[in-house]
């Protein structure tokens, strides 16, 4: 049914149509309307989930890991500090192979306090073993939740997922969203039925101590699942397209990259603005393109390498930074390109931290900078828009 709603409501409806059985969440700006919507849906009976109103995000994840281990389909939503608080348990959920799906409203971390869009919270979880998707629009938010359950609950994957939506830009902005009928989702997504669970008829222990001779083997199994998830995401998206008639571009969405002189790589809602800038610049005769990283974990190595064959100059716009060296996606793109014979020129741009506005004007400046890049770069990373630095 076509409705008009915010990204947060799209998340809530995503959990609803997927028939999440146990939901446990703690309020944090700007995720609150997800929790409020779910509370309304549960209390009216429209949604049959058990909503555990926990006293912290850490407890929310703990409740869900145990609920998932008992065989229930689980969902939560959080943002920024809530996600950071859950960090210990994100690693636990991946290790316990519980396919929890979580909406993260990407928000900057304090201090200073900020409620605006920034990917640092999600990026800080890249080592946890969770799959991660960055959404460009509200329809994608809802659809990605459905796909995350379908893929995550496969017995050979069994990995949890974070579906990222940018704070306020997606979470609180209204867009048309086609909410699928529950029967349609039921025929696409069967009930969660894990082989092993907490069951008094078949008592096992879960999560015991393991000696050094076997720990690495358990970790290797997670690695195997994550590697299989690359093709898994391609497959589930094709499946989704066959079933619901729409797609969001696979692991990396290529936009007007053919014959480009310069391609910018982005993730999240800034890519949406960038598409308009690409259209404008192309109309002015500048051959530019945009690649939008959708699935960040597992990292789409093949798609990035394919991209590199399309242009000589690339810029990776990171909407976050890992203090130490390079932006996080910049590092990973660079790593993916390392072994290529004809590596493109790659500049890493740090953009939009704390919700600093990425206007079409700014993005156009970045494209022009990238087009002007020549070989023998004397620096490989630039912070955009910092007052008093780099000409801003």
């Amino acid at each position, binding site marked *: 049914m076509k409705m008009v709603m915010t990204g947060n409501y799209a998340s809530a409806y995503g959990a609803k149509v997927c028939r999440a059985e146990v939901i446990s969440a703690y309020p944090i700006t700007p995720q609150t309307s997800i929790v409020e919507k779910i509370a309304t849906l549960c209390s009216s009976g429209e949604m049959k989930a058990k909503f555990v109103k926990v006293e912290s995000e850490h407890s929310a994840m703990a409740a869900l890991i145990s609920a998932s281990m008992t065989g229930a389909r689980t969902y939560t939503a959080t943002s920024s500090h809530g996600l950071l608080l859950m960090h210990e348990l994100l690693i636990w959920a991946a*290790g*316990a*192979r519980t396919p929890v799906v979580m909406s993260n409203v990407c928000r900057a971390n304090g201090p200073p306090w900020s409620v605006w869009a920034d990917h640092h919270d999600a990026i800080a979880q890249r080592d946890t073993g969770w799959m991660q998707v960055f959404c460009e629009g509200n329809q994608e938010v809802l659809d990605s939740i459905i796909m995350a359950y379908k893929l995550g609950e496969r017995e050979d994957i*069994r990995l949890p997922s974070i579906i990222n939506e940018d704070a306020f830009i997606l979470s609180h902005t209204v867009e048309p969203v086609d909410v699928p009928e529950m029967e349609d989702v039921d025929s696409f997504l069967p009930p969660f039925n894990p082989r*092993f669970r907490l069951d008094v008829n078949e008592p*096992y*222990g*879960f*999560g*015991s101590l*393991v000696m050094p001779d*076997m720990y690495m*083997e*358990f970790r*290797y*199994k997670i690695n195997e*699942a994550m590697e299989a998830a690359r093709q898994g995401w391609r497959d589930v998206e094709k499946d989704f397209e066959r079933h619901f008639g729409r797609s969001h571009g696979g692991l990396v969405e290529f936009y007007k990259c053919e014959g480009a002189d310069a391609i910018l790589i982005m993730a999240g809602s800034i890519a949406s603005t960038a598409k308009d800038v690409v259209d404008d610049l192309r109309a002015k005769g500048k051959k530019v393109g945009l690649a939008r990283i959708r699935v960040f974990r597992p990292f789409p190595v093949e798609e990035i390498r394919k991209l590199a064959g399309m242009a000589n100059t690339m810029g990776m716009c990171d909407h976050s930074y890992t203090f130490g060296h390079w932006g996080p996606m910049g590092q990973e793109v660079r790593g993916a390109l390392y072994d290529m014979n004809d590596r493109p020129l790659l500049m890493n741009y740090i953009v939009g931290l704390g919700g600093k506005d990425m206007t079409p004007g700014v993005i156009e400046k970045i494209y022009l900078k990238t087009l002007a890049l020549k070989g023998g770069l004397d620096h490989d990373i630039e912070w955009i828009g910092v007052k008093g630095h780099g000409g801003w």
Partner: protein
Amino acid sequence: MTREQLKGVYKTYQDLPLTPITSVNSSANQTGFWKTFKPVLDSSKCIKCAICWKFCPDVAVRMKEDVFPEFDLRHCKGCGICANECPKQAITMVMEGDVE
């Protein structure tokens, strides 16, 4: 199964469950080799009250109604609670000799 036998079952990572799921009865782990002292029963004093069975932390006292208790020396760690609690002092803790 002993740990040596288990190594034969879990040879590669593919033999493992997807997360550590424990399913082998821990009684395969024979903790009896921990003990320095072992309990010895004087059946002439024993009144079969089952207090030793009740207070054994290692489930190492086997007992049925009206039968003398039996000590499972493969699991008994020699803590001495049974001897300390026996109302008739029918159990003595004796230094274990060579490993059985």
